[in-house]
């Protein structure tokens, strides 16, 4: 999951500029990015990690930090593997 972390970090760097994001830092506490950000994040995660973000995944807790997103990925890929 180290690779996943750095891929997410790389993506987020575009939005949070020169700020070095910590793995557990709440990105929503850093302020509103813009109205396109949320869907860009969804598309990024879906394409990069080949999963589908669904209705029930939409909980800010799942997207609030790099660690939270890695956990979501972990859970979703385990479920897919389990199926």
């Amino acid at each position, binding site marked *: 999951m180290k690779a996943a972390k750095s891929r997410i970090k*790389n993506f987020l760097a*575009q939005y949070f500029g020169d700020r070095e994001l910590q793995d557990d830092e709440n990105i929503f506490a850093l302020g509103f990015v813009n*109205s396109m950000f949320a869907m860009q994040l969804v598309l990024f995660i879906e394409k990069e990690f080949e999963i589908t973000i669904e*209705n029930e995944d939409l*909980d800010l807790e799942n997207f609030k930090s790099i660690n939270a997103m890695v956990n979501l990925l972990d859970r979703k890929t385990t479920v897919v593997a389990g199926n």
Partner: protein
Amino acid sequence: MNLELTTQQKQAQSEFKAFVNEEIIPHANQYDRQEHTPNELIEKLAQKGYLGAALPKDKGGRGMDAIAFGLLNEEIGRGCSSLRSLLTVHNMVSQALLKWGNRFQKENWLPKLASGEVIAAFALSEPNVGSDAKSIETTATRAENFYILNGQKKWITYGQIADVFLVFAQNEGKPTAFLLEKNSPGLTIKPIFGMLGTRASMLAELHLNGCKIPLENLVCRQGFGFSHVASSALDYGRYSVAWGCVGIAQACLEACIQYTNQRQQFGVYLKEHQLIQQMIAEMLVNIKASRLLCYQAGYLRDNGDPKSIMETSIAKYFASITATKTANKAVQIHGANGCSSEYSVQRYLRDAKIMEIIEGSNQIQQITIAEYGYQEYLFSPNLPVISQELTARI
């Protein structure tokens, strides 16, 4: 990189062209004058599967890829921007449900939307709220077995005939999306007449006075109505409008090529005058540039690329400016005839202006496009050399 349409896309394009030439173009000026789209035309659109164009086949749709869907929007836009806006709002709602609807909503609504049995409209704007959409004032309050909606929606395209609305309201202060059926108690629909453009698009106001809707009509989750549901719908809408603008501009160009080849002044055809040629050249080049931006956005969309959202916004921004500029020139080239209701170019100009306002006005696009520029060139971890120099200077 391959910029050629596939055989399938080419076939689809000729089908769309034939439909628009036969069924739409001969009547579009009349629909515009009457501020009305006849039911039979919508039924024909439905029979062709165009209302379910972008929905997957297993939901009853035609399963078009983004490029084919784009070509459809260009062609319908070439004929009638009002009808193209039906395609836009109906598909915006379908796509939002496809992505964020729950299983019941998908199973119940998508096949009906795909077949056109049900017409959908998108209800976000309000008398006091347009660009700053997340500040909507309509509220949704949870009661025991339903939500109660209060507020007003305005400028709702095809609101006069829609069977279901994707409506946005603050639920406990959080923007949230709901499905609202047209005969819900407490909903009054008032037609809007006298708009500048897309006059046949049957706009309406929705008055929600203690309007009751079932709990299962919540779409997605509380608080995600704007960031996810409206955003994905609007992204779809911008894509559709961008291509529709290419269609308007193309219609202008074709009208001007014909006209300048037939009308003479100073003893020669208008096309012989170099100042006319200048306008034709600018029209042609801007149309080609707009279409290429649309193709690029379509290609990225088919790949699920996160950049597709901003590239779509860029395409919509440029294509809407192109449509307005091109239509303006088209009226100029047609002289007094261009100002008359006997010619279509005056309609194109009025319709084109609307495109600079809807689905995020051009000022709002400029703001987000500039932000995108900074993200790309200043903050991206894979900075190209030129922007590394830029960063170093700041």
